[in-house]
């Protein structure tokens, strides 16, 4: 679309008036750079786990660290930040989330299912004789 209105913007902010901006320009922006994304991991104090907090757009890891500092460490106590390109993260599919279903047969992983006291008690009550001689 062509520039339809070339009037200069008069603003309450003198800095904007001084910039002599023209309104009504609806032309597409050109040359917007497309940056990749980085995953940000935030550690609040030494020894704690780094936790995923979000993403930033950046052209390289140095800039990703800078943006991560501004975006995710401007309030919270922070000891350390990691960034990793999103393209380096491999993930499972939610569609396959049945692979994580802990089936009831996996009770053998549960310490509470190991009940030796009953058996010891019975053993003592029968005079500590072998099970095939009682």
């Amino acid at each position, binding site marked *: *679309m062509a520039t339809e*209105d070339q009037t200069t*913007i008069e*603003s*309450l*902010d003198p*800095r*904007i008036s001084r*910039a002599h*901006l*023209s*309104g*009504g*320009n*609806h*032309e*597409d*922006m050109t*040359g*917007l*750079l*497309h*940056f*990749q*994304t980085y*995953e*940000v991991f935030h550690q609040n104090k030494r020894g704690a786990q780094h936790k*995923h907090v*979000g*993403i*930033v*757009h*950046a*052209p*390289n890891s*140095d*800039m990703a*660290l*800078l943006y991560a*500092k*501004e*975006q995710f460490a*401007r*309030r919270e106590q922070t000891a350390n930040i990691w960034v990793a390109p*999103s*393209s380096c*993260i491999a*993930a499972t*599919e*939610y569609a396959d989330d049945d692979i994580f279903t802990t089936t009831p047969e996996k009770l053998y992983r549960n310490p509470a299912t190991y009940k030796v006291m009953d058996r010891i008690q019975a053993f003592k009550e029968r005079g500590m004789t072998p099970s095939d001689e009682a």
Partner: protein
Amino acid sequence: MYGNAYIDPNEKFSSEEETPELVAAFQARIDAGEKIEPQDWMPAMYRKQLIRMIEQHAHSEIIGSLPEGTWITRAPGFRRKLALMAKVQDEVGHAQLLYSAAETLGKSREDMMNDLITGKSKYSNIFNYPALTWADSAVIAWLVDAGAIVNQLANSKGSYGPYCRALERICYEESFHLKYGHDNVVHLATGTKKQREMVQAAMTRWWTPLMHFFGPSDKASVHSDTLMRWKVKMASNDAMRQQFMDMYIPKIWDLGLTLPDPLLKKNIETGLWDYTEPDWEEFKRVINGDGPCNAERLAVRRMAEENGKWVARAINNEEAEHVRPFA
């Protein structure tokens, strides 16, 4: 996978057919309170509405920082300058979080920026009004942010995971904006005669835009029913407006300030606020481009993008040895 969210703008989404079975399974997941994640199947309309909503929200944050940003140099006192700078930085940060969330649905941040600057996308209408005095800046920080919080808290219980996670962080930061704005309004309202006049004038100016803020009444329509069922929209415009009025009108009156609506009162029988409908023709006119500041907002955003290009090119230079500008 907010996080792991980069989506190639050229990538086409699978055009998997919208069978009744898929839609029913999708609805069941939402009814069970599960969050939808970017790689999940979703109806095309769900995707489209969410992009529109999150993108507009992001634009509102970034444009909303402009009327307040111009007051930083003129904020009275060093502490208020620091606080206002922090608030403006938060708002721009909110935009970044939201652009990232919208991007998970398949529209690139650069396309959204272009659509904002060329006027293809909308942003909250309230930012097309000027902050004439310091008191306006105080009223914005208190009440526009209060309105935003009502809206954002509701939406943070929605169904789309990346949007909810962005909103949780945003709501946490908004509480400072609200306190800061309230502090400024109280300071003026309990101050000199001149200060009281200033804040009263600002309150009067902002009342109509605040009543416009939640949008026109959206009585049950098939469209909004679907969006509610999908938890894209969490409350009706009227419900959110009533909640806002309930929370803030008493606090405004408490300061001895008045609002320019003679009908304004809580109806004891209905439990709702009675009020005069604001001029919705004005709302439509302004949102379609003919407001006091529309042209300025977009021109300033365009200038920022144009003038910042060399920075983007500089940090993007692979040959450069040192790009990290902090120790």
